[in-house]
């Protein structure tokens, strides 16, 4: 049985930052919540997706809102349980497990609190294989899974149940409720049975996050090259090596948007690169041409340590390596690209599938 203890959470949080591609919220606070829950209730059992019973219900849990608020108004730890149980009542079921909707960033950790506290397994999967900013941007949407009924709960005891005609309405109404709750709330949504989950979720992403974290920490300990190890593990490739020469930021509609310039060093000496970001890194440009785009993953790591660098921490002078990681094949379908391709984010460019060969 695969048990996640205090140290495993440390590794997963680090791996989740790599999968967060600059956004998704810093997993640190979520990790501390999960570690406190594990200290009190014992480790979390990680359940492989293919072992979920076909008729068993699984309920994904997450936090929604501003990470800035999350780190100040830390949850009580019960609101996420409230949301989870509210959905169980609505569906008249006892869920067999919870799961992460988003393995990148802080939402890799929130379901751990549910799993540890309620003594339920956590399914080794998620709904993205990365991080995305909006509720409907999950692979279950591609399989016709409804986000609703959706439960939203806050630390004050407020609980709201949403029923909406589609997942775009869910996003709109849930966002409004979250703001009223103080810009940070916990949610349970996309409840589904095992048979659906096996098709609709991205498998093995929690163990992947753990492997990423473990690889980075081991490389640091043994002074090995973390970049080669990471690209091999993620079937990705190094897009460039260079120095950040400019970061331009602006806040639009609650998103930290901007671009950063990188000038190549080493084997890429002199080549200009650019990355466009909206919380997450979305487009990687080489010499003015788009080379890698969302939904493939673009992650910036420290040149020496391989540790991921979040959008907030980007600044002039950092020596970085940019990694391209192929997204899950579900995102490469016409439906997947309509939901989370470059055009959805406002870039008038075609998706260019990232290969793992040079």
């Amino acid at each position, binding site marked *: 049985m695969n048990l996640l203890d205090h140290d495993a959470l440390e590794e997963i949080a680090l791996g989740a930052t790599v999968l967060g591609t600059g956004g998704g919220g810093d997993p640190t*606070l979520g990790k*501390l*919540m999960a*570690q*406190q*829950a594990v200290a009190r209730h014992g480790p979390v059992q990680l359940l492989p997706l293919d072992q979920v019973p076909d008729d068993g219900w699984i309920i994904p849990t997450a936090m929604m*809102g*501003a*990470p*800035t*608020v999350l*780190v*100040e*108004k*830390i*949850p*009580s*730890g*019960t609101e996420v349980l409230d949301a989870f149980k509210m959905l169980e009542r609505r569906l008249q079921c006892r869920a067999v497990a919870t799961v992460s909707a988003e393995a990148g960033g802080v939402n890799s950790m929130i379901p751990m*609190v549910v799993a540890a506290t309620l003594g339920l397994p956590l399914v080794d999967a998620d709904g993205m294989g990365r991080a995305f900013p909006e509720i409907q941007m999950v692979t279950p949407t591609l399989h016709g899974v409804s986000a609703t009924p959706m439960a939203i709960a806050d*630390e*004050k*005891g407020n609980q709201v149940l949403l029923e909406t005609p589609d997942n775009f309405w869910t996003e709109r109404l849930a966002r409004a409720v979250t*703001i009223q709750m*103080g*810009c940070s709330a916990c949610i349970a949504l996309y409840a589904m049975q095992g048979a659906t989950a096996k098709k609709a979720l991205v498998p093995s992403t929690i163990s992947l996050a753990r492997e990423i974290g473990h690889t980075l920490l081991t490389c640091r300990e043994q002074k090995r090259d973390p970049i080669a190890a990471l690209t091999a593990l993620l079937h990705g490739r190094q897009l460039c090596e260079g*120095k950040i*020469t*400019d970061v331009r930021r602006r*806040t639009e509609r*609650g*998103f*930290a948007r901007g671009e950063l310039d990188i000038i190549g060093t080493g084997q890429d000496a002199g080549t200009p690169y650019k990355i466009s970001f909206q*919380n997450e890194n979305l487009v990687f440009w080489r010499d003015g041409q788009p080379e890698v785009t969302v939904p493939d993953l673009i992650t910036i790591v420290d040149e020496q340590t391989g540790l991921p660098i979040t959008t*907030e*921490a980007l600044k*002039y*002078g*950092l020596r970085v390596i940019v990694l391209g990681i192929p997204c899950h094949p579900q995102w490469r379908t016409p439906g997947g690209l309509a939901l989370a391709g470059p055009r959805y984010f406002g870039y008038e460019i075609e998706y260019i599938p990232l290969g793992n060969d040079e």
Partner: protein
Amino acid sequence: MASPATPEKVSDVFRLGIDVGGTNTDAVILDAADQVVASAKSPTTADVTTGIVNALQAVLTASQLPSTAIRYAMLGTTHCTNAIVTRRGLSSVGVIRLGAPATRAVEPLITWPADLRQMVCPQAFILHGGHEYNGEPLATLDPREIRAAAQQLKGRVRAVAVTGVFSPVNSEHELRARDILQEELGDDMPVSLSGEIGSVSLLERENATVLNAALIAVARTAIEGFEQAIRQLHIPATLFLGQNDGSLMSVDYALRYPIFTIASGPANSIRGAAYLSQLRDAIVIDIGGTTTDIGILQKGFPRESALAVEIGGVRTNFRMPDLVSIGLGGGSRVHQTDEIRVGPDSVGYRLTEEAKVFGGQQLTATDLAVATGRIQLGDPGQVQALPKRVVEAGLAYISRSLEDNIDRMKLSANPVPVVAVGGGSILFPEQLRGVSMIIRPPHYEVANAIGVAIAQVSGTIDRVFALDTMSRAQALAEAERLARGRACVAGADAASVELLDLEEIPLAYLPGNAVRIKAKAAGTLKL
């Protein structure tokens, strides 16, 4: 080491600046026109205070001034940093968080090293209270809960730290909690409020507030020791302390916010470099015996770090100067392996015994500088036989290391002026890539003590303003008013206070009705 005094005329008012560094305690005496009358260096001692007294006596002797001429004494000290790092002298603190039922998912101080937590915190409470991001109450403050907590803490703690959710937006609950705690525990019970210390991010601000409360007794002992020393020498000076934004605070203020003395040394260096070079924007490099601190002078003051800073294993988010420290100094050992490297290990204060030019066996960075003839020190004959290749490769290593770190600290690719200060700045090359000019001002070796002696008094504010009830312009005006008020509380002459910085930081992922504003005001000492 002391330089003789050459005062042109004895003016009425002289100022004493003392800066305690890791290796040396430096002292200067300035006249009314801010000119250096005398300077002295004395080794820093384990108890800090002895080293201060030694430097004080040396500089007073060198100045040939009557002790009664010294009217102001400015002290930049490491007492507080040392107390945290060595875990000595810290007070036990009652930790109260106002946020229940929120925040229970992560208990206070769970990220602290266990030894420090056990020493500092006998008991922590999460009580009802705190605010939302827009300043509305999160939960009703319950005075009975606070009184009950106070009764449990009575006799067990020497200070209390109160941290309310979103207190940087609304301080009401923290202020009420302080009143209630002092009713129960006495008016003399120090109560540190988080909204006065750190910014948004509850755990880091709580950590900083608890450390602040734990340091109050340390600061009191240090200040009393120094006051006693100046009385013994018949110096009738009023005492001020250097804080880590390069400004001064009064003794009363320092006793409430001792944490702001942490990293005041590098901040003093940056201010001293600004004064000596007459620049307001530059990179300041302070090279000591073991380490080099690289900081940024921005509009005349040290640039603040935007990231959380760890102190003694504790993550905090109170303002700290943005610095990089590298293991490079006058005493750095030169390693002659297949590739020549300098540092990060150092002979430190044993330089005058172990370096080749002083007859020792260890090749140091100082020896390389002497070998080039760039400086005269010790016996240059000892390094004449040194292969040119070693000298050049060693100095190239130092240049590369400086260039690399300067580039990391810059905000853009444009070349910047660099001011080199500190005893080890003899190592500084004549030119560097990415640098427009290199200035090594007179008195560079005591720039830190000069920096604290000439410092202004400042007030800063870093808060989130909810724009539900006020406009952006009103929020900016309010931030300015608060910063000016804090400067006056810290000891500034109200008429001289100027607004130095007003910065608006949009909050990502939040709807547009809240804004974080940082403001800084400073003025001259109220004499």
